[in-house]
């Protein structure tokens, strides 16, 4: 399939009707969190879109992000990969291996220099180059070479976006994110551990239709990361009434009350889980009774324990507050009003600080 054909031409060649195409556009509008009234604009843009060459590099990662993408229910993954992008290199999904695979990467780069989309998952070790290599080439070297010819870079997953788990203290490999190394290219971060499958697909589709999406301060697309989990959580009425589960098997937990005291990071986490949900819109962690871990935020692994309430002091609270502020956390959040003296005292004494203590302290 040639890359210079438009998507409209390709779909027609495959016998897909105009109705089928419009249905795809309706699903795309929903996926991109655009109002349904945008469908004609999406149809016009997709009709003319040309399949971009995509080179996907995987560095220090667990393959969870690729697993997530291949479970995308947006359009079926086959449609996404074969119709809307030309996936020229992905060492997990491609059939070629060894020198054949590396040749494919090099020739795709050469043929599409300056035009291809570079997708990266995994963090990049900056310590010993031997910590992570592909075909004997260090991750840093491969990234810098591929980035030089890319039109744009999509960092998929929290590792590529923020360093992720490899970057967690004590960060033995010196792992860094894509934005730590590259500043002269448009970079879109799609964090999450893993990211929601349809969000990965949505960002790639946005490239095709309207180019680089609108981003927040952490390079995340606002369409998916513009609202906190807490803003859109169905348990929010309980939070507002002060009704909290205190343990995983108490009455509050059984009644579906707010999980804040069990460590929910929903108030400082920006992602689409509460509305898009997982497994074809079936559920998301909070709906299953588990607090949000905050996996789409920088350094979530070092944020003081998954089961510690946000109001409980952590070594890294200053950073948590900073990231929260950077993304516009709602005023009045318990963290914002943290009584620092009380917190420092509790940290020394290893006491628990409850929401009630903080409210008392103001």
């Amino acid at each position: 399939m040639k890359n210079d054909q438009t998507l409209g031409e390709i779909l027609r060649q495959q016998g897909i009707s105009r109705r089928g195409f419009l249905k795809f556009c309706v699903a795309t509008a929903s996926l991109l969190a655009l109002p349904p009234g945008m469908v004609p604009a999406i149809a016009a843009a997709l009709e003319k879109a040309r399949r971009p060459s995509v080179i996907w590099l995987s560095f220090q990662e667990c393959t969870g992000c690729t697993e997530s993408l291949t479970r995308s229910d947006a359009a079926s993954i086959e449609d996404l990969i074969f119709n809307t992008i030309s996936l020229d290199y992905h060492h997990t999904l491609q059939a070629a291996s060894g020198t054949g695979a590396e040749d494919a990467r090099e020739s795709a780069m050469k043929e599409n220099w300056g035009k291809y989309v570079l997708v990266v998952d995994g963090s990049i070790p900056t310590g010993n180059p031997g910590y992570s290599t592909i075909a004997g080439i260090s991750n840093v070297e491969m990234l810098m070479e591929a980035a030089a010819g890319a039109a744009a870079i999509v960092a998929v997953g929290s590792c590529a976006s923020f360093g992720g788990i490899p970057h967690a203290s004590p960060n033995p490999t010196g792992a860094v994110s894509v934005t730590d190394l590259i500043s002269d290219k448009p970079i879109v971060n799609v964090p999450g551990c893993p990211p929601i499958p349809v969000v990965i697909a949505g960002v790639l589709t946005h490239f095709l239709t309207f180019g680089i999406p609108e981003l927040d301060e952490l390079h995340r697309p606002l369409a998916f990361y513009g609202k906190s989990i807490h803003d859109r959580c169905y348990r929010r009425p309980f939070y507002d009434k002060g009704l909290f589960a205190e343990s995983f098997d108490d009455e509050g937990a059984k009644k579906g009350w707010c999980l804040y005291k069990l460590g929910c990071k929903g108030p400082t986490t920006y992602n689409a889980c509460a509305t898009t949900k997982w497994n074809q819109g079936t559920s998301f962690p909070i709906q299953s009774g588990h607090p949000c871990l905050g996996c789409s935020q920088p350094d979530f692994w070092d944020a003081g324990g998954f089961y510690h309430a946000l109001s409980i002091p952590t070594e890294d609270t200053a950073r948590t507050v900073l990231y929260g502020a950077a993304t516009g956390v709602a005023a009045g959040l318990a963290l914002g009003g943290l009584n620092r003296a009380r917190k420092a005292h509790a940290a020394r004494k290893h006491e628990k600080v409850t929401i009630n203590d903080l409210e008392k302290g103001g």
Partner: protein
Amino acid sequence: MARTTLAEFAIEVGDAGTHNVQPLLHEIRHALAQLLEQGKETVIDLRSIPLAPGEEAAIEQALGEGEVRATLSALGPSDFRETSYPGVWVVTHYNRDDQIVGKFVEVTSAPALLRSQTEDIAAGLQRLEARLTQDGGGRVV
């Protein structure tokens, strides 16, 4: 020793609602009035609203079943159901693996995708002409 059963861990959702059902029904009422008075159509994306478990079903139940049900078969099935309120349709699109890719409330006299599309009509005409040419061995005028 009494063993803990799975049911004891079940999360009750009866009173865990977002209270979004009633406002949504009001939004539909406004949209329906607009359709009647100004002919303006509205589409509401059900997947963009925070809903508690069971609330999507509650909305569908409140809207009820109407006179028309249609299925479209293009890139997977789509289900068009007029509700008990004429002009209010629940539309569900599935992909080829039967997974839901979109769910909408459409306030319209007929969902746009049910109509034959101009491009498809043109392609159909070409096919019919080609067939008749082949069958009759001559040109279609």
